[in-house]
C-alpha cells in the first residue's frame, strides 16, 4: 500500500528514534517478565510493532532490503521464509526447553521432573550484579518470543505483500 514517497520527513525521523526505543523496551520486557509485567508474548508483539512502524513509514521493500538483507523471491524463501524459520525456531526452543527438564531430571534428579518443569538458578558473587537469577523459564519465554515475532511478521508480510 504505502510507498517510499508519501511519508513525511517528520514521520521518518520519529520512526528512526522510536523504533530502537521500542526494541529496547521489548528486550527489557522479555528479560524482566518473570518478576515484573512483561514476558515473551508482550515483548514479541512490541518487537513486531517496531517492524510494523518501519514497514508503514518506509515500505516493505526497505524493510526487506535494508534491514533484513533479503530479496523477496517467493513464499517460502525470502523474508517470509526467514519469519517462518523464526517461529519454527521459537516453537522448537519452547518445546525443547520443556523436554530438557525431563532429560535433566533423568540424568541428575532421578526422573523427578516432568515436561516443562521450571526452576531458577541463582548465581552468586557475580561482579557488578552480585547475584543474578537465571530462571529456566526464560528459555521457554524466549521460545514464545520468537514464535510471536516470526508468526506475526509472517502474517503482516503476507497480508502486506498482497
Amino acid at each position, binding site marked *: 500500500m504505502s510507498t517510499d514517497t508519501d511519508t513525511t520527513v517528520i514521520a521518518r525521523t520519529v520512526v528512526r528514534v522510536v523504533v530502537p526505543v521500542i526494541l529496547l523496551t521489548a528486550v527489557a520486557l522479555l528479560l524482566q517478565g518473570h518478576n515484573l509485567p512483561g514476558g515473551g508474548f508482550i515483548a514479541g508483539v512490541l518487537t513486531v510493532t517496531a517492524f510494523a512502524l518501519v514497514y508503514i513509514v518506509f515500505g516493505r521493500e526497505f524493510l526487506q532490503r535494508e534491514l533484513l538483507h533479503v530479496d523477496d523471491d517467493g*513464499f*517460502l524463501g525470502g523474508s517470509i521464509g526467514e519469519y*517462518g*524459520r523464526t517461529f*519454527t525456531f521459537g*516453537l*522448537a526452543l519452547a*518445546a525443547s526447553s520443556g*523436554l530438557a*527438564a*525431563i532429560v535433566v531430571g533423568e540424568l541428575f534428579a532421578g526422573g*523427578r*521432573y*516432568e*515436561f*516443562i*518443569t*521450571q526452576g531458577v538458578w541463582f548465581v552468586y558473587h557475580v561482579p557488578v550484579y552480585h547475584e543474578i537469577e537465571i530462571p529456566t523459564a526464560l528459555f521457554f519465554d524466549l521460545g514464545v518470543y520468537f514464535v510471536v515475532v516470526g508468526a506475526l511478521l509472517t502474517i503482516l508480510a503476507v497480508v502486506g505483500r498482497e
Partner: protein
Amino acid sequence: MTDLVVAPLLVALFTAIATLPLRSAQRVQQAVSVFGGVLYLVAVAALVRAVRVDADGYLVYELSNWEAPFGITLVADDLSVLMLGLAAVVSLAALVFSVRGIPEVGQRISYHPLYHLMVVGITGSFLTADVFNLFVWFEVMLMSSYVLVVFYSGPDETRAALHYAFLNLLGSAVMLLAIGGLYATTGTLNMADMAEYLATVPASQTTPVLGLSALLFAVFALKAGIVPFQFWVPDAYRAAPAPVAAMLAGVVKKVGVYAIVRLLFTVFSVAALPPGLFGENATFLAFYGPVLLVMAIGSVVVGGLGAVGREDLDGLLAYSSIGQVGFIVLPLAVAASAVPGAGAEIPREGLVTLGITAALVYSVNHGLAKSLLFFVSGALSRTLGTVRFDALGGVSERNPTLAGSFFVGALALIGIPPLSGFFGKLLVFDVGAQAGSTVVLAVALAGAILTIAYFTLAWSRGFWGPPSDAVAGASVDRSFVLVAAVLAVSIVVLGVGFGPLYDLSYAGAQAATETQGYVDAVLGGSQ
C-alpha cells in the same frame, strides 16, 4: 514410565516442528512426516499397553511438576487410550494417503506441519484433565483443521471454511464463557477436582453449574456435529482434502464425543440437582438424557435424509457422518437416563456402562469405516477429478480392490455382520431393547434403513453400472488402494475377532463412569 503419557503429544509436536524447515526437501519431509506418524502409533501403543497392563488403569502426568489441581494434569485411562488408539490408526492411514493424495505444492507449503499439529491438538484434548487446557488443545486442533479444510482455497473451500471457522469461533467464545463460569462456581479447572467438589457440595450451592455444563456441552456437540450444531459439517467435509475429511469425520468428531462422555459421565454425573422437575435425588444426567435423545433423533433424521439424495459421493459421506453420530449419541442418551437418580423408573447400572460401550464401539467403527470411505472417495476424486455420481460408474470393474474396500466400509456402517460395524449396531439396538425404549429402537431402525438406502444408492451409482469414460481410462494410485484395503481388512478382523475391541470399549466405558477412580488417581498425590 509416566513420561509415556506425554510421549504421543511430544512425538506429534516435534514431528510438526521437524517438517517445518524441510519444505525445500520434499522427499525428506514426507519421510519424516510418515516416520513421525509411525512413531506416534508406537507411542500410543506403548501408552495403551502401559495403562492396560502395567498401570492400574490410570497413568497420571503432572506437567511442570505441579500437583493437581494446581498445575495441569494429563490422565491416560482406558477411555482416553481407546480414543488415542483410534486417532493413531486413522491418522497414520491418512498420512500415508496424503503423500500421494495431496498435491506436492500443498505438501510443501504447510500440509505436514499442520497435519501433525492437528494430531497434537487431538492428543492433548484426549489426555488433559483440565478444562481450560482442553480449550487450548481444542483451539490447536481447530486452527489446523480450519486451514486444512480451506486447503485448496477454491470458492467452495473458502465458503465452507468460513462457515466452519466462524461457527467454531462463536463456539470458542461460548466455551470460554462456560469455563469461566465453572471456575467461578466451583473454584477449580481440574475435572477431577471439579467432580469431587460437585459430589460433596450440596446441590443448592451449585445451581448454576448445570446451565454452565450445558454451555460446555453445546460446544462439544458443535465439534461432534450433532444436530442442531451440524451446520458446518456437510460443506466442510466436502471441501476438505480426502485425508483431512477422513480425520475430521474419523477422529476430530470423536474428540467432541469423547469430551461429552468425559464431562457428562465422569464429572457431571455426580452433581446432584436440587429437588424439582426430575424429583428427588436426580443428577445432572437426568437433564441430559432427554437432551441427548432429542439431539440423537435429529442427527439420525437430518443426516440420513440428507445423504439419500446427494449427487456426489463426498456429500453423501458428509451427511452420513451426521447420521452416524446420531447412532453414537443414541446409546449415550439411554445411558444418561439409566444412571441411578436420573429419573429412570428402574435405574440399571449395567445399562449405563453398556450404553457408553455401545457409543465407544460405534465411534471406533465409524472412525475406521468413514475414513476408509473418504479415502476411496479421495482416491477417485484425485484420479478422476470428480466424485459426482453421474461421472462415476463401474469402478468395481476397473478397480475391484478399491471398490471392494468401499463395499466393506459401507457394509460396516450399515451394520452387516461380522464386520465391526455390526457389533456397534448390535450394541445400540441392545441398549434400546434393554431399556425397553420403543423410541430408541424405532430411531435406530429408521436410521439403519436410511443407511442401507443411501449406501446401496452410492454403490449402484458409483461402483456398479457401466463404467463412465473417465473411470474406464483411469488408473488409481496403488498407495490409495493399499490404504483402503488395509483399513477394510482391519474392519473385518475387528469384527470377526470382536472380543478385544469390546473389552477395550467396555473398560473405556467403565473408566468413564468411575468418577471416584478418576478423582483418586488425579488428586491422590496431593491428598
